[in-house]
C-alpha cells in the first residue's frame, strides 16, 4: 500500500527556489480554505474572494488605503526581523508601537498651539525613543536576569495600552471633546504630510522604504548583520567567535522597539491625527506574521505586508457587502500563519510520491 502514499524525505541539498515557494504555497492553501469557509457560510466563494481580495484595491483610493495599512506592518516587521534573526522572540511590538504613539503624540499635545517645521521631526524622535525605551525593558530583564522575553515583552503590551487608556481619559483628554476618551486633534504641522492630494497614504511610507533599504544593507553587508545571523543559527558558534551576546540582544530590541515606535507615531500623526484608545488594529501582533511570511527578508517583507494589509481591507469590505463580521480578516491571517508554518517543512524535507527507495 506504500506505493500510493507520498512519503516525506530529507532534502540532500538546499533548494533556494523553495524559499520563494513556501509563502506561495501557504497563500494558495489559505485561499482554498477561505473559499471553503465562504461556501459553508452560504456565499458564492468566487464572489466572496473577489469582494475580499480584489474589489478593495480596484480603485486608486483603495490602493492608497492598502499602502496606509501596509506601511506600519512593514515597518514593524522589518524591525522584528532584527530580533527574530537572532532568535529573540520579541512579541511585544504592539506595546512598543503604543509607547511610540504616546511619546510622539505627547509632543504634539504639549505643543498643541505651536506650529513649526521642527515639530514633526521632534515627534519622530520622541516616537523612536518611546518604542526603544519600552523594548529596552525586556532586553535588560533578559540580559541581566535571563527572563523569558516572550512573556515580558507580551505583558508590557497590556501595560502600555493601559497607560494610553489612562492618558486619554485623564490628563490628555480633549477639553472640548464632550468627554470622549480622546486627545486634542494634532495641529497641522504635527501631521505626516500626505504624498498625494486627497489620498491618505503619507510620508511614513517613504520613511519605511528607506529603513527597509538600510536594513537590507545591514543584514547583508555589515558585520553587525552577520553577528545577528550567526547568533540565530548557532549560539555555540557565536560564543566561539567571541560575539558580545548581551550587546546583540540589547541592540536588536532597541532597533525593533524604535521601528515599532515610529510606526505608532506614524499612525497617530498620519491617518488618525490624535490619540485615542484604538490606535492600532493589532498591527504589532500581525507584523509577526508579516515578518515570517516575508521570511525575514526585506524584499519578502514588502510583499507580505501588502498581502496582510489586504486582509484588513478585505475584512472591511466583506462586512459591508457580505455582512460577514470583519473578524474574518483575522481568520485569514491565522490561516496564513498556520499554512506557512506547515509549509516550512518543505525547506528541509521534500514530498516524494511513489515507492520509498
Amino acid at each position, binding site marked *: 500500500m506504500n506505493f500510493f502514499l507520498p512519503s516525506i524525505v530529507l532534502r*540532500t*541539498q*538546499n533548494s533556494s527556489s523553495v524559499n520563494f515557494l513556501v509563502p506561495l504555497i501557504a497563500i494558495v492553501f489559505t485561499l482554498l480554505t477561505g473559499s471553503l469557509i465562504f461556501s459553508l457560510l452560504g456565499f458564492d466563494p468566487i464572489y466572496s474572494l473577489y469582494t475580499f481580495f480584489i474589489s478593495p484595491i480596484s480603485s486608486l483610493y483603495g490602493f492608497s488605503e492598502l499602502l496606509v495599512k501596509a506601511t506600519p506592518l512593514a515597518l514593524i516587521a522589518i524591525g522584528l526581523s532584527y530580533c527574530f534573526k537572532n532568535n529573540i522572540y520579541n512579541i511585544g511590538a504592539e506595546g512598543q508601537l503604543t509607547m511610540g504613539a504616546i511619546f510622539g503624540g505627547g509632543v504634539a499635545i504639549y505643543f498643541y498651539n505651536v506650529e513649526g517645521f521642527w515639530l514633526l521631526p521632534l515627534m519622530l524622535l520622541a516616537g523612536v525613543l518611546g518604542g526603544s525605551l519600552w523594548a529596552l525593558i525586556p532586553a535588560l530583564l533578559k540580559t541581566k536576569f535571563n527572563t523569558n522575553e516572550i512573556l515580558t515583552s507580551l505583558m508590557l503590551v497590556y501595560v502600555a495600552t493601559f497607560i494610553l487608556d489612562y492618558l486619554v481619559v485623564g490628563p490628555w483628554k480633549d477639553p472640548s471633546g464632550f468627554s470622549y476618551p480622546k486627545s486634542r486633534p494634532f495641529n497641522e504641522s504635527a501631521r505626516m504630510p500626505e504624498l498625494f492630494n486627497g489620498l491618505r497614504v503619507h510620508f511614513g511610507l517613504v520613511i519605511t522604504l528607506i529603513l527597509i533599504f538600510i536594513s537590507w544593507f545591514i543584514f547583508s*553587508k*555589515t*558585520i*553587525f548583520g*552577520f*553577528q545577528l*545571523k*550567526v547568533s540565530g*543559527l*548557532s549560539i*555555540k*558558534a557565536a*560564543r*566561539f*567567535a*567571541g560575539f*558580545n551576546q548581551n550587546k546583540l540582544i540589547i541592540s536588536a530590541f532597541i532597533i525593533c522597539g524604535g521601528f515599532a515606535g515610529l510606526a505608532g507615531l506614524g499612525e497617530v500623526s498620519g491617518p488618525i491625527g490624535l490619540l485615542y484608545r484604538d490606535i492600532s488594529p493589532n498591527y504589532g501582533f500581525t507584523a509577526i506574521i508579516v515578518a515570517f511570511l516575508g521570511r525575514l527578508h526585506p524584499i519578502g517583507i514588502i510583499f507580505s505586508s501588502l498581502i496582510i494589509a489586504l486582509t484588513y481591507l478585505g475584512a472591511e469590505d466583506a462586512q459591508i457587502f457580505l455582512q460577514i463580521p470583519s473578524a474574518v480578516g483575522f481568520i485569514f491571517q491565522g490561516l496564513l500563519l498556520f499554512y506557512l508554518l506547515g509549509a516550512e517543512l518543505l525547506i528541509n524535507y521534500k514530498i516524494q510520491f511513489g515507492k520509498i*527507495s
Partner: protein
Amino acid sequence: MGQFILDIQNISKSFPRVKANNKVSFGVKKNTVHAILGENGAGKSTFVKILYGLIKQDEGKIIYKNNELKISSPAEARKVGIGMIFQHFSLFESLTVRENLMLGIDDYISYKKLEIKIENLIQKYKLTLDLDAPVISLSSGQKQRVEIVRVLLQNPKILVMDEPTSVLSPQEVKSLFITLNALVKDETTILYITHKLEEVITICNSVTIMRDGEVIETSSIGSNTAKTLANKMLGKNLEEISKDFSAIKDQINFEVNNLSCKFNDPFFTDIINISFKVNKGEILGIAGVAGNGQTELMEILSGENLNIESGKILYNNKRIEKLNPQQRRNLSISFVPEDRLGHSAVPELSLNENTLLSRFYNNKFTKNGLIQKKILDDHTKSIINLFNVKCLDADSNASSLSGGNLQKYVIGREILSEPELLIISHPTWGIDAGAENFIRQSLIKLSKLGTSIIVISQDLEELIQISHKLSIIYNGTLSNTFNTDSIDIEKVGLLMGGGK
C-alpha cells in the same frame, strides 16, 4: 554453504548521489570474531543498518543460518538472534543500571527471572557492574558493559559491535576483549566494525575490508599486518609522520597554574587544580577518555567560559584568563573546538562567512563594520587551495562539505591566521585516513615554524604520533607530563582509567 552463519550475497544500496553498498558479498564463519574494516564512508554502517533491519537493501540477500533473512525492523532482528551495540550508547542517563536493563527487554519476563538472568551473565562474563548505580555516574567502559548485558539478555547468536573501543581506555579495551573471547567460546559470532587496524590483528579471526562501498577482500587474519591492512583499506600508501624535538625552544609560551572551575551540575565535569606549561614550538597532547573534563577545559582555554573559580592562565607571561575569545585571538592564539558543525563552523553559512566567524574583529576583512567581500573571498580561496579542501567554491555552504574537508578547512583557517599558539580539540575525529594524515602533518609543520600547540584528543595513538609531551586528564584533574619518546603506554592507560 553450511560453514557460514551469515552469507551476504550481492547487497547493494544507493542513496541520492552515492552508492553506499555495491554488490557486497562475504561469509561469516560461526563462532568467530569477524572484522569489517574500512574508513569512514566506506559503507560499513550502511551494511550494518541493513543487517539490523534499520534500512532495506535495494538488491541482494542475506542468508542467515541457511535461510534468507527477511526482517524489517530492529525488533525482528533481535527476535531472530541478531544483537547490536552502537558506537553511541543509547542509555537513560538518569536511570539506574537495573532500570536500563529492564527497559531493553522486548518480551514479558518476570522480575525475579530477569534478576537471576542478569546476575548469571555478569558472573559468567565478569562484567562487573553495580546494578543500583545511576548510569550517569558510570565510566564509558561501564556504560558499554551495560549495553553488552542488555543485548546478551536476548540470547543473540550474532553480536554486531560498531566501533566499540572508540571511547575506552587501553585497560577497558583489554577487559572488553576478554569478554568477547568468552562470548565466542559460548557460541556467539561477533561482527566487529572498526577502522582501527591493531584491534583487527589482536581480536579478530577474519576480516572483510571495504572501500567506497565495495568489498576489497575477505580473508583470515593470518599473515596480515597492520601495514598490509592499511594499504588495502586506503588503496594507497600514506606519508610517514615524523616529529622533530629539535625545533622546541627553551622558552615558555603558555602556562596554566592551579586552574579550578566548579559547575555544580552532574552533566559537567569540574576542573580541579590543573597546571601545565607549553614551550615555543612544542606540541602538548592531553589524553583522556571522553567526559573527563576535556570540553570544560577547552572552553576555559578559549575564553568561551570566563567564570573560573581560581587559577591563572599566562601567555608570554601575561595573564589572559579574563580575555574573551576575540581578545585572545588578537594576541595570536587560535582555537579549534571539537564540534565542527555548529561550533567551529556554522553549517548553514558559506565558507566565506565561516572565515569571518573567527576573524571578524581587528582584521582586513572588515572596514568600519562593513564586510570586505573581495578580500574575504580571496582569503577563503587560499585556505581551500593550501589545505586541499574539496568543495565547489568559497560560497558553498559548510554543510555541503564532507567531515574531513570541513575539518581541513577549519584547521586551515586557524593555521593561516599564523597563530603563536594553537589549541585544538579532537583534530581528526570522524574523518577519513587521508585527511587525518594531512592534518597531523600540518600540525607538525606548524610546530616546526615555532607555534606552540595543545592537542586535546581521545585518540592516544594520534597523540603519541604527533605530540612531544603528553598529560592525561581524568575526572577534571591533569597528570604530570611525560615525554612521548620514552613513554610507558601501560602507565598512560592506567592514568586514563583513574589509576595512579
